[in-house]
């Protein structure tokens, strides 16, 4: 069996101290909880961040909001009920709420001004600037286009598209976390996909 320790320096701590010594060892009642949480975190963190971005959270805020999601996950860990759906659906449901809060918040903020200059995918583009191969550009272009198309959808349709179509959750799971009926999910999804196809027909393929 392998165990690994990740040596992690808190961003708050400046400088390292070679004298660091592990000093206290205790077994803990919280460990099972910690284990579950850590496993959930590693398994779903990418999906959560992705979902947030697809739900409109800017890239620059996505990390913060991802953190919010998992803080909520920790606090509500006891409410996770496998019978009511997969953990992923549950977590992405929380992500939906966080994304909705985020949108509400940005709407009321001065930061709206930033919105005008910040392209949601600009960071992605910049990040990949160095290896901007054709393929990479295609990828970015697709993401851009997708972001644009998703932004045109009404919120409830957008949520359903992201959760079902992109994250691959079942209508039943999504229905459970959004607290609507599975039929509603299906019909929203159908409508949304029709809109997306129609919008794709209108684009020139570049998202611009």
């Amino acid at each position, binding site marked *: 069996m*392998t*165990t*690994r*320790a*990740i040596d*992690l320096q*808190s*961003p*708050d*701590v*400046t400088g*390292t101290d070679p*004298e*660091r*010594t*592990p*000093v*206290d*060892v*205790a*077994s803990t*009642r919280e*460990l*099972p909880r*910690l*284990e*579950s949480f*850590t*496993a959930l*975190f*590693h398994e779903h*963190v990418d999906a959560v961040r*992705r979902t947030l971005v697809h739900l409109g959270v800017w890239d620059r805020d996505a*990390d*913060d909001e*991802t953190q919010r999601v*998992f*803080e909520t996950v920790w*606090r*509500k860990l*006891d409410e996770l009920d496998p019978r009511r759906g997969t953990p992923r659906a549950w977590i992405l449901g929380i992500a939906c709420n*966080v994304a909705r*809060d985020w949108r509400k*918040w940005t709407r*009321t*903020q*001065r930061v709206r001004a*930033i919105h005008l200059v910040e392209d949601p995918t600009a960071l992605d583009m910049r990040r990949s600037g160095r290896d901007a191969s054709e393929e990479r550009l295609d*990828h970015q272009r*697709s*993401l851009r286009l*997708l972001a644009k198309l998703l932004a045109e959808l009404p919120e409830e349709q957008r949520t359903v598209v992201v959760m079902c*179509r*992109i994250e691959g959750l079942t209508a039943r799971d999504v229905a459970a976390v959004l607290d609507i009926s599975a039929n509603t999910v299906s019909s929203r999804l159908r409508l949304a*996909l029709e809109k997306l196809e129609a919008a*794709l027909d209108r*684009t*020139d*393929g*570049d998202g611009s």
Partner: protein
Amino acid sequence: MTAPKTRRPSLDELVDAARSRPGMSADQRSRMLSSILVAVSPGTPSSGSGSGGAAPQQAPRPGSSLPRGAGALGASSAGRALIALASFAMGGGVVATYYGLRPAETRIVIVHDRAPATPTVRARQPDVAPPLRTDRPERAEGQGEGPGGEFGTRPPLPEWGEGRGEARASGEFRVSPSPRPAGDGEVATRPSASDGREFAPRPMDARPERQGEGPMLARDRSDDLQAERALIERARAALSRDRPAHALDALTQHERRFPRGQMREEREALRIHALRASGQEAAATERARTFRRDHPESLMLPAITAGTGERARRTTPAPGQPWWLPSETSAVDGGNR
């Protein structure tokens, strides 16, 4: 720039692209996990359960579904400087490493194995065998939370799990191969609020070796300034990201550790802004009054008093401009209101 006309991509392609968005690096994950665990660490009241008492009532951003523990780490427990990281190994072992906020405060290495009866302990220094001795590099510093230690008080260790009485008494923790709790395999329930607050200051005699060391003290001073700055910086960053609860957290930590620290002026100024940002207008006004009394010459005063009496407002700084300086976002438009 005019892009070349390309064929119409299919929805499937877009979805594939979306799914293959690059994920976070291991390092990013670790960092995020650690800051999450800090935010939710035992001092933080769990959602719903009021922390009671001193913790300032926080208001997360309006409409937020997140119960935020303002001052949580700091106010409701002494174990606030805990940074926790847990790394989950698929084999079933868990290594959790806890760091205090300050350098030289590496806390805990836990290896919890499911299978064997005795947990393995792996220290980063391979020659350390369980049970580990308490021989951390200590600072000479004041005890307790009271005003007094300008260099702050060491955050007492949170004691996770059983055997805490004995551990506290002897001033050291041991590896206790304690059986897992009854609900093995399930998600354990959150310990009660009192659990989270059972942090006792360490007995003085647990670390006598560093008392009165002059050079050490000098190093401590610069360490402390760094730690102060880190906390203040964290508060500022949190505030600029509209996480006033987190900002209050950091500020409360600062206050506990450095009641008379060198950056207390910044702390108080930031706290006023954070209180205001979280909708606690009355508290903010009160603090602003005190601030004016204590720091009549402060550069930050205009920005603070300009907001007095104003309705709750976010403090999002204009890009590139220090938020605390009188500016259109604070002084001017606050005054015109």
